[in-house]
């Protein structure tokens, strides 16, 4: 709506209200204050709702309809002026507001009438409500018929009381029928609506019943000349009409809050929540219980929603609208058509849902990458272990074997040369000594690369061998006898080996203890000493050991307060 039009409407509304107040000071008996208040309040509320609706949905006719109701309500008030023309106009237009109310209710919430039949009904209501007033005026002389102080009726043809009365009595069943048809249509709209549309229909149905009841009571009592207090019937009861604008304002507020609710629904979702939780949160926030969140099947053959039902985005079903999420077309929202009247809200929801899904996708991607990295780290360590085993075996089968043979050969040469040449004897002796030392060094080297004892006998034998070689007095408190997967045995072995090497090199300890226990789902390896403590976890040896334990999916803890010994503990998962 343009600024100018809005200004005109507001000015018109202000003028109408000012007029209301002014006419209450026109000479003659002043109207009851309650009539002034009710008339002004009802008329103004529809005009305000109209401006609000125009603002909220510029493309919808709902704003126009609210405004029409407001003016149709206020127009008959000109009859307050005690002149013939305004008095006649007031009486002709007295019931138009009721027709526009029916129009508004049937067009709710889109502002458009749903079928040709309904357009016919609305036209009929307008025609009847105006025509009936005109025809009635033809035979109503106010001055002789209940209103001696009223101005003249310009349409008066015959002041016959009986004709006017007969017409009024005939009007009652017609008016009732029209009201019944309108009410039935409203109830039908409500029954056929689903999701969001149904929710916004519920208060309308209740308000319609009340308004139709008011209209029926007014028609029946007026036309049949029943004596019911005017104060109640025209002063207080019309305040029920305020419910219409109130309903609209409430729905506007709800839509506002829904925008916030969409945001908090996304924020409140815990990370990695399954998609059905996202759907539930969005459906709640939007007030559309029928909302579906559907994902494209991996083979691209179609879409499935979060409860496993097939969804065809090309044919979402009657009254349903498809909203793609993101650009990939991986996921779609299918919602009630009524929500199209909340385009901002739907756009907001779609982008929020898109973000949530993107977040979930990224999270899954990071998780998958993490799993890949963990798996590749484990494979790298395993490959390293295998390579070390191969190297050790190569040394054993090759160089060590040859050195052994060489030693034996030297031994035989020594016995052949015995007594023949003392110089040759001493030469062979020193060659044998060199060969033996080379063999010892090679054995140490091979053991460092990969202890054969670990492959040959498993963890228990290897740990016993380590402890026997340790220069610090070391005891074994617990040691499981069984075999474990090669990587676990190697990891546990290297923890003990590195720990005992550190005890010997740095701890200045009197004794050390090795404990290995098989607990549920893990192997617990512990090495403690009574030495100086103060070991630094960030030192390269312990850092490498921590990496090694982590590669097996375990954790390494170091407790080394200065002066209170060191305790190294590794938990290695094993099933």
């Amino acid at each position, binding site marked *: 709506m343009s600024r100018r039009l809005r200004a005109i409407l507001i000015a018109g509304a202000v003028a109408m209200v000012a007029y209301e107040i002014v006419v209450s000071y026109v000479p003659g008996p002043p109207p009851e204050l309650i009539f002034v208040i009710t008339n002004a309040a009802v008329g103004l509320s529809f005009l305000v709702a109209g401006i609000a609706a125009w603002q909220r949905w510029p493309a919808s006719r709902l704003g126009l309809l609210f405004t029409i109701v407001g003016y149709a309500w206020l127009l008959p008030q000109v009859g307050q002026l005690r002149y013939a023309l305004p008095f006649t106009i007031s009486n002709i237009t007295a019931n138009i507001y009721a027709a526009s109310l029916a129009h508004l209710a049937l067009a709710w919430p889109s502002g458009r009438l749903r079928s040709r039949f309904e357009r016919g009904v609305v036209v009929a209501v307008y025609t009847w409500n105006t025509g009936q007033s005109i025809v009635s005026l033809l035979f109503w002389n106010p001055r002789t018929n209940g209103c001696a102080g009223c101005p003249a009726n310009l349409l008066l043809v015959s002041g016959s009381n009986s004709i006017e009365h007969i017409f009024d009595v005939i009007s009652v069943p017609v008016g009732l029928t029209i009201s019944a048809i309108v009410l039935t249509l409203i109830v039908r709209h409500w029954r056929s609506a689903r999701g969001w549309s149904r929710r916004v229909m519920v208060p309308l149905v209740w308000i319609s019943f009340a308004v139709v009841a008011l209209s029926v009571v007014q028609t029946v009592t007026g036309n049949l000349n029943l004596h019911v207090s005017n104060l109640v019937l025209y002063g207080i009861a019309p305040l029920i009409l305020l419910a219409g604008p109130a309903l609209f304002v409430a729905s506007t507020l709800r839509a506002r809050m829904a925008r916030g609710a969409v945001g908090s629904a996304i924020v409140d979702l815990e990370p990695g929540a399954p998609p059905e939780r996202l759907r539930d949160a969005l459906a709640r926030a939007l007030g559309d219980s029928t909302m579906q969140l559907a994902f494209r099947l991996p083979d691209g053959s179609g879409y499935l929603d979060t409860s496993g039902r097939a969804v065809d985005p090309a044919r979402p079903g009657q009254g349903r609208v498809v909203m793609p999420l993101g650009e990939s077309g991986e996921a779609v929202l299918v919602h009630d058509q009524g929500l199209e009247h909340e385009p901002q809200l739907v756009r907001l929801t779609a982008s929020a849902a898109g973000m949530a899904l993107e977040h979930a996708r990224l999270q899954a991607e990071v998780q998958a990458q993490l799993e890949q990295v963990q798996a590749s780290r484990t494979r790298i360590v395993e490959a390293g272990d295998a390579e070390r085993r191969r190297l050790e075996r190569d040394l*054993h*089968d090759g160089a*060590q*074997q*040859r*050195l*052994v*043979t060489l*030693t*034996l*050969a030297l*031994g*035989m040469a020594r*016995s052949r040369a015995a007594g023949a040449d003392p110089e040759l004897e001493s030469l062979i002796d020193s060659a044998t000594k060199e*060969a*033996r030392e080379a*063999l010892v060094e090679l*054995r140490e080297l*091979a*053991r460092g690369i990969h*202890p*054969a*004892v670990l492959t*040959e*006998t498993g963890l*228990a*034998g*290897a740990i*016993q*061998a380590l402890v*026997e*070689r340790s220069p610090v007095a070391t005891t074994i408190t617990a040691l499981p006898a069984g075999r474990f997967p090669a990587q676990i045995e190697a990891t546990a072995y290297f923890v003990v080996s590195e720990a005992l090497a550190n005890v010997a090199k740095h701890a200045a300890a009197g004794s050390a203890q090795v404990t290995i226990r098989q607990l549920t789902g893990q192997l617990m390896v512990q090495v403690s000493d009574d030495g100086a403590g103060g070991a630094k976890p960030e030192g390269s040896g312990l850092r490498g050991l921590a990496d090694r334990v982590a590669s097996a999916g375990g954790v390494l803890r170091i407790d080394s307060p200065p002066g209170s010994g060191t305790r190294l503990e590794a938990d290695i998962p094993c099933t």
Partner: protein
Amino acid sequence: MPAACRDVRLDFVNPSAEILVVDDHDGFRAFARIMLEAAGFTVAEAATGAEATEAARTVRPRLVLLDIQLPDFDGFEVARRLAAQPDSPVIVLTSTREASDYGGRIAASPVAGFLPKDQLSGAALLEFLARSPA
């Protein structure tokens, strides 16, 4: 693997052999033979665990010098099978590795002892024979 299924090499078997050298390393077997024959023993050879069990039945040596690492089954398994035979020979395990590299497995085997390969001599074997009850 049942021994009968193997193509047992019996061409080198000496019926009066006193020592059976079991090792898959040809060079070591050759040197061991020369050294032990020089020390006065008769020597038979086997290159695998299967050959060793077969040769032990036919040759009936007094002592078996048994390498722990063999291509088919390891020395511990061969020792177990030999020890299960009637009049089992004195079994001495050997390796280029040290005894500690095998943890408690050597002590748990039905063998007379362990001799590092580079310590091999006729005198060392005689000592084992002398210590054995048979």
